[in-house]
């Protein structure tokens, strides 16, 4: 009997040993590979997974903790996105560490659920802008830059092109937007800035998916705006560029949102896209050391996500890599605090993201200088940077035409806090106290 017990104990400890050896960190990959938005979903998702793969191959994981993932098809559809989230959130061994919904609609649907489940959401460059107020949204991180920051930078960029912000007076600006929560995000900020700078704003909605825009562009031809902001997504972008060419609107006077500024958005429009500007928070290319590592450790071994090699180093691909960098850095930071070489929980990951500080020095170590702006997140500020670059399509590739540009922080922050406060009131949330220094 005693010997049996001892054997059982030994077996148990052996079992425990194998569990401990299974040192893995699970991250869901809920993106989309079908439908009108597939280029964005597969590109971004592919980049993120490529980076995880590279970390596993080059470093053997994060301090020995291997990253694992599982793909789930959301079709950019809220209901499917929620289903994928519920499916992956308890996935062994760690449960979902962090979630990248890659859809503003899905982000909205997950805010409550993920906060209750203590799983952080990183909505990098999309999602609910007011989630940048970390006091009301402790688990949501619209990292790097939000739609409102971007809108202010766009107005600034166009103002500079005209020779100063005072030139805006009496000018006409048209916003052509995807008729969804995503497309409507910039309207309040652009409206406020219209009052401030004296331009006349017209908003024109394009219904999902946006492959029919004749009427909208005829309206634009009548208005004869000085600038057009294209807030498009997926198939809507090339269609808009072609329609603009048809009505003879100059593409040099069109500025796209960062979801309008990838190769997949302009290539189908052919020559109609030449001269089109777009915003961006990441740079394309394979020249960055981190991208070289992805090529060396992942693609050279045949483990890459893309079958079409031309997509490597494209905007969506490097944006996914940036998402991977941010995620892995947060895991690294959380491990440093809660136990090096051990898997972390969603709550610990939240701490990791909130205390992220990727400065120029760290960017250099990561081999990502110029790929993304430096980032410093805090309890108060879940955006962390706000910097935006502009690029122009020269007919063959995107050429970066500005340095990192600052948003109108004061205006954006005021609106963020007002909106977050309203949300807190509606939902009966008492905002966290971030302390004096906002940490």
């Amino acid at each position: 009997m005693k010997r049996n017990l001892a054997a059982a104990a030994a077996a148990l400890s052996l079992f425990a040993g194998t569990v401990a050896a299974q040192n893995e960190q699970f991250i869901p990959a809920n993106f989309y590979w079908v439908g009108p938005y597939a280029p964005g979903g597969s590109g971004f998702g592919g980049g993120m997974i490529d980076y995880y793969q590279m970390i596993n191959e080059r470093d053997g994981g994060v301090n020995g903790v291997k990253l694992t993932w599982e793909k789930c098809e959301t079709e950019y559809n809220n209901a499917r996105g929620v289903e994928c989230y519920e499916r992956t959130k308890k996935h062994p061994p760690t449960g979902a560490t962090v979630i990248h919904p890659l859809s503003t609609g899905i982000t909205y649907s997950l805010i409550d659920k993920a906060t209750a489940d203590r799983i952080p959401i990183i909505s990098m460059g999309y999602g609910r802008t007011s989630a940048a107020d970390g006091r009301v949204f402790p688990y949501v991180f619209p990292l790097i830059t939000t739609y409102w920051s971007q809108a202010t930078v766009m107005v600034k960029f166009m103002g500079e092109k005209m020779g100063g912000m005072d030139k805006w007076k009496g000018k006409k600006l048209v916003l052509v937007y995807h008729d969804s929560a995503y497309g409507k995000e910039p309207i309040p900020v652009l409206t406020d800035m219209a009052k401030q700078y004296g331009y006349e704003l017209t908003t024109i909605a394009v219904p999902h998916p946006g492959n029919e825009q004749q009427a909208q562009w005829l309206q634009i031809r009548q208005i004869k705006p000085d600038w057009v902001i294209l807030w498009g997504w997926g198939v809507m972008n090339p269609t808009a560029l072609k329609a603009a060419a048809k009505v003879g609107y100059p593409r040099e006077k069109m500025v796209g949102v960062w979801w309008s500024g990838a190769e997949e958005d302009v290539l189908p429009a052919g020559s109609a896209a030449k001269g089109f500007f777009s915003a961006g928070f990441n740079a394309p290319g394979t020249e960055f050391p981190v991208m070289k590592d992805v090529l060396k450790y992942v693609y050279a071994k045949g483990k890459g996500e893309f079958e079409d090699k031309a997509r490597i180093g494209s905007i969506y691909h490097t944006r996914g890599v940036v998402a991977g960098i941010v995620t892995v850095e947060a895991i690294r930071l959380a491990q440093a605090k809660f136990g090096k070489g051990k898997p972390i929980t969603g709550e610990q990951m939240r701490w990791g993201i909130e205390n992220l500080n990727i400065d120029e020095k760290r960017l250099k170590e990561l081999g990502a200088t110029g790929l993304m702006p430096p980032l410093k997140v805090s309890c108060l500020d879940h955006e962390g940077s706000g910097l935006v670059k502009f690029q122009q399509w020269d007919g063959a590739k995107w050429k970066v035409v500005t340095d990192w540009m600052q948003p109108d922080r004061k205006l954006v922050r005021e609106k963020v806090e007002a909106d977050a406060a309203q949300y807190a009131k509606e939902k009966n949330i008492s905002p966290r106290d971030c302390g004096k220094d906002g940490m």
Partner: protein
Amino acid sequence: MLYREAGQFKSTYAADQQIFPILQDRVAIIALLAVAFIVVPLIGDQYWLSAILTPLLVLALAALGLNILTGYAGQLSLGTAAFMAVGAFMAYNAMLRIPHMPILGAFIIGGLCAAAVGVVFGLPSLRIKGLYLAVATLACQFFVLWAINRVGWFSNYSSSGVITAQRMEIFGYPIEHARDKYLLTLLIVALMALAAKNLMRSETGRAFMAIRDMDVAASVIGIPMMKTKLLAFAISSFYCGVAGALYAYCYLGTVEPEAFTLDLSFRVLFMIIIGGVGSILGSFLGAAFITLFPIFLNLASKWLESALGIEMSHAVVSNSEAIIFGSLIIFFLIVEPNGLARLWQIAKEKLRLWPFPH
């Protein structure tokens, strides 16, 4: 052998007219309800309850609503998602603007507003029929979404047009957990399905069917055309409106108008076509098929991958799922154009004779 009604005698009219005249059916439905109300909440984990069963029930309710209009009253509609949107957004506004509004009251207000919209957009049905009516209801789909998108009042002037469902509470008991939301949905859906079943067996339901089968004949025998058609629109939209409110409150939590696009209208229409036009059971079977099957295919492709040890590109898998799903719909419609409910009926008739068919 098991499923035989020999020896079951009916001695009263009530016994003859009950919904399930056969004892085995009654036992089966009671067992099913017991499983749904007791066993599922006990054993189901959060994934099953909140991501699969709740949306399934909600969409079954929407399909039921459409089935009343299209299946029973014969009026083709493509505005289902619009009626759901009205229900969701008006329930939200009722909760927001009326102090101490009980959540069930908000659902009813959402349903009633949807019914009112339904009646307005049902007016063309007095003059036009079939596909032309479908086009008229298509206008409803676009108009409602346009109005919700453009008129800030509906979403309480939210900059992105998104509404977030308020906290739910019934008699002081908070409905927060997936299990509670599932039970609330199940209760509402069960009661409304029962009401629908009885309605269809009543004079009103028979009037609907008379209009469906031949409206000239129906008006000749004295069925008021306008009242009956508009009533069908009102009841159907009420069901859809409640389904929309449940979709927002018990399932997604946060809704943008984009959740209720034409896509959803078509999906609900496919549900009743596949499930069975003019059948309460068909609404449930169709909803199950349309919502569960893509998820099943998605999981099955993963099992297949790990069982066979091959790695397929995810894009290929995702696209082939859509292809398989589409071809199965065609297959089902060829094999049984009257839907899954009819298949079930055939199975029951065979079972009655089994094992001695002659």
